[in-house]
């Protein structure tokens, strides 16, 4: 038995345009979003024979209705993959697609699969956060978790309380920056955004880009927004990721299999970690998960040249940056903007971070390592460290 670990690579990622919940994709099925992402991914990679796919791992936070019925299997069938290709569904709330990637990566590294499709979808139009949830009464009775922890906006307010240096002004400034960075990079981003048909009572349209970004956002514009999670609070719609509809998908492969099939290698996986934190301050989750992943990889934060951090809330990104002593406007962090601008369709965002990091790697051969990281509801963080195959030595 060959018990050596194999190299796992990220071949390519693609996503649908992201729509504002209740708007563009209101009448579009979630499974149709992920099916389109998978089909686009396969079309972009004609070198991948579909029958070679060993697994289709798809994430959704609310796995009922058009996100239920073992979406990984049903979407694979509906996307036209051969019936011999298996699939399953996966859930780690916002880190669903990230977990889909790490799960299939683990299986590839240990020689169980050669190649897999991982991704995620969330139609927050069809499935508002917490839909159908039935929290155990012990949560309240035994004071296991503050019920506020189930409301993500409240956990973001909690971070402002806990870390007074994370002011509303810093959060607003961060949001202005991410909107501006998105606006500057919108053409580059579009390379990995497929088109998506959307039907409404007024007929068909075909979406070609994200619906949510607000280019030209200013400090003044953000200053007086409502604070929906607490009277006179600090977290506003302007510093939060909005409710979003969208899907992502990527190809994860054994390095040798990718080479055999002539598939491009965009990133090499170095390692990953997940970690738990207090559910009431779930936004700090990526801090311990990143520490853990770095330690296991034998790296330090100084080795990381690029960060793709999911912006659930500006304050939660700032907590991460403060912890690692990174400036709020560090150009290594979310160079093309983040979820505050483009949106955060919960379970699908992990692969969106990876797809963007892969693009940065291609442009930045001087960077060797990059991190994708995100916080997760109920107090978790997830981090994947990637190596740039284009690395040509530091400047």
């Amino acid at each position, binding site marked *: 038995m060959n018990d050596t670990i194999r190299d796992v690579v990220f071949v390519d990622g693609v996503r649908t345009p992201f729509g504002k919940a209740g708007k563009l994709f209101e009448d579009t099925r979630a499974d149709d979003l992920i099916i389109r992402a998978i089909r686009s991914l396969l079309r972009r990679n004609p070198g991948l024979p579909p029958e070679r796919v060993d697994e289709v791992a798809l994430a959704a936070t609310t796995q009922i209705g058009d996100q239920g019925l073992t979406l990984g299997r049903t979407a694979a069938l509906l996307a036209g993959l051969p019936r011999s290709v298996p699939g399953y569904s996966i859930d780690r709330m916002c880190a669903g697609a990230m977990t889909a990637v790490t799960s299939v990566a683990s299986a590839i590294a240990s020689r169980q699969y050669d190649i897999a499709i991982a991704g995620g979808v969330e139609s927050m139009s069809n499935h508002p956060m917490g839909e159908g949830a039935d929290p155990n009464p012990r949560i309240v009775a035994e004071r296991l978790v503050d019920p506020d922890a189930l409301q993500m906006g409240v956990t973001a307010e909690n971070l402002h309380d806990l870390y007074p240096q994370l002011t509303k002004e810093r959060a607003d400034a961060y949001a202005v920056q991410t909107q501006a960075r998105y606006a500057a990079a919108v053409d580059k981003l579009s390379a990995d955004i497929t*088109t998506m048909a959307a039907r409404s009572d007024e007929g068909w349209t075909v979406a070609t880009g994200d619906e949510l970004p607000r280019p030209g956002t200013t400090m003044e514009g953000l200053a007086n927004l409502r604070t929906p999670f607490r009277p006179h609070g600090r977290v506003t719609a302007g510093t939060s990721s909005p409710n979003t509809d969208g899907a992502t998908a990527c190809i994860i492969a054994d390095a040798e299999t990718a080479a055999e099939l002539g598939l491009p290698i965009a990133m090499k996986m170095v390692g990953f970690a997940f970690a738990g934190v207090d559910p009431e301050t779930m936004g700090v989750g990526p801090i311990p998960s990143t520490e853990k992943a770095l330690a296991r990889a034998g790296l330090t934060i100084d080795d990381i040249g690029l960060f793709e951090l999911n912006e659930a809330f500006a304050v939660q990104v700032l907590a991460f940056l403060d912890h690692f002593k990174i400036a709020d406007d560090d150009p290594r962090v979310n160079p093309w903007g983040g979820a505050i601008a483009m949106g955060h369709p919960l379970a699908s965002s992990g692969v969106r971070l990876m797809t963007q990091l892969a693009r940065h790697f291609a442009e930045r051969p001087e960077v060797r390592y990059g991190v994708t990281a995100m916080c997760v509801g109920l107090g978790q963080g997830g981090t994947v460290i990637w190596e740039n195959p284009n690395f040509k030595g530091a400047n």
Partner: protein
Amino acid sequence: MSATPLDLPDFEEEVVTESYVRFLEPRGLGGKAAIITLDNGFDHTKPSSFGPGGLKSLWRAIDAVEAEDGVKLIAVTGKPFIFLAGADIKLMPSLETREQGLALAQAGHALYKRLKDSAVPTFAFVNGTALGGGFELALHCHYRTVSTTALGLGLPEVSIGLIPGWGGSQILPNLIGIEKAAQVVVGNPLNQNKMLKGADLVPLGIADAEFEAADFIEESLDWAVKVATGQITVERAEIDRDAWPLVIAGARKLVDERVHNASAAAVRALDLLELAQHATFEEGSLAEDEALADLEAGPQFQSSIYAFNLVRSLGKRPEGAPSPGLAKEVRKVGVVGAGLMAGQIALMFARRLEVPVVMTDLDEERAQKGLAYVRAEIDKLEAKGRTSKLKAAKLRALVTASSDKSVYADCDLVIEAVFEELGVKQAVFAEVESIVSDEALLVTNTSGLSVTAMASGLKHPERLVGMHFFNPVAVMPLVEVIATESTDKETLATAYAVAKKLKKTAVGSADRPAFIVNRLLGRMLAEVTGAVDAGTPVEVADVSLDALGLPMRPFALLELVGLQVAWHLCQHLNEDLGPRFPASENLRRMAEADFPVFDAAAKGKGKLTEEAKAVIALGDSPSTADEVGQRILRGLTEEIGLMLDEGVVPSAKQIDLAMILGAGFPFWLGGLTPYLDREGISTDVTGKPFAE
């Protein structure tokens, strides 16, 4: 002055299909795309169609597109699964004058021409059903994409007495050549109204590109952008302009052979296709306008619409059927007999009901022979791809055979398909009744014996019902459902529910001899043989109804039915209904002949051998073909009048529906009674028309 949609009066009952316009800026186009969506606001079970309101909406949509700056491509598509199902059939009866028909024709032309003449490239994204005027809309666009799994595509106008008159007869032959166009415009509608599927369009040259349904709109738009920007050049096969005369001549011969030119629409469609070789589009459009106006004002079209609506509404909701809620569940079926008919019935029940079906016959050998036939039929279905491997395996598992009737013990329905003899059937039911539960349905497939007489010896006559299937059972869409005086509601409801599951159209008939279809076909043959017996040569009598365009001439029908069966029916009708059905001596001679009566070389054409002609004794008062034709039609009229008097069916509608589906009588006759009415024969014979 030619009409546009804006000149048309509104049609109150129209469910308006709106044309919604959305502008977007696809990557790489360097401008805007306009997507026009045709949507009537209902799901796919109510397909979009065009009346005056729909035409106006598309007219205004094109106005809006033309008013927009920077539009680089225009695409038309439909709501999910439906592109556009054509002109609204419900509108048709409201066209009272020729002028109204002409205006509608012109308005369609004026509208679609805007897509054809557009300076901006136009595309049809044919995402689903596109029939008639919907198909023609697509033909006017400069380019077409089609969803590979779209169903219900084509130009079926000829089947309802019209022609593709919104450009179809002129554009299609010039796009794909006359041979394929003649098939689509005339051949398919006359061949049980065969439709095209999505995957047919690119091979035929009708669509330029095909995409799978999963992301059809996206991929179509992507393709359209590449065409509009010159990245893709659409190449179409050169058509053979020299083929025209030969193809048209061949098609005319076919229409003559198949329906003896009785279909005015088919003949007119061929005229238009012929014209398309040299005519300009404008000349062709004018000819289409005139043809549409003529046909819409003519009798065949009105009869066709009547027939269309019969099949669509009365066929779906049979009159006299009890509430479906009363139907009993059928979880196992018994078939008595293992002959050819029994085997066909067993296979049909297994395929459609997907419950165990057990056949029996007198001994094990016959039972197994019947089973072998069924298995061979399943093999054929599988080999042709008509059923999946799994479904075929399931069918093989469901159908069994035995010589021991105790296998009926747990059947919920037992149908007999044994020899057509009352005593035999009575004996069968007596035996079966001793085995099955008191609630199990007993069903006879008799083609005309008294169901009441069969019920007379039963302990529970209330569970006996007749279900008369037509040969070949798998193909013929009709079943006559016969209740006796004692049949209870649950039994009758179950029979109708089973018929529906079998995908048959059920028409109820009183328990009168030969029910509906066989009684009328029997009367028709009685008049034909009567004319021959009287001295009319067979060749003359055989062509006497050619003007009606029936699917078969009388002697071809005799050949199909079989002379023994026909003779049997003839005697039986003679006994039950009297001298209107004389026991023809010539029919007896043919049935009892010990030599081939029909020419094997002309199989199916009803051509007699010389030996057969030699034994036919002609009387001394021959008739002309016209006289025989009148004799038959008057005979049929009399018979229908009697059937209505006897209460065989509640109205002439059921007779027409039964003749359309059970005997293949054409739409342009409206089945039969609209033809008899419009020819004045019904008034002449019975004193009033059949139509109420």
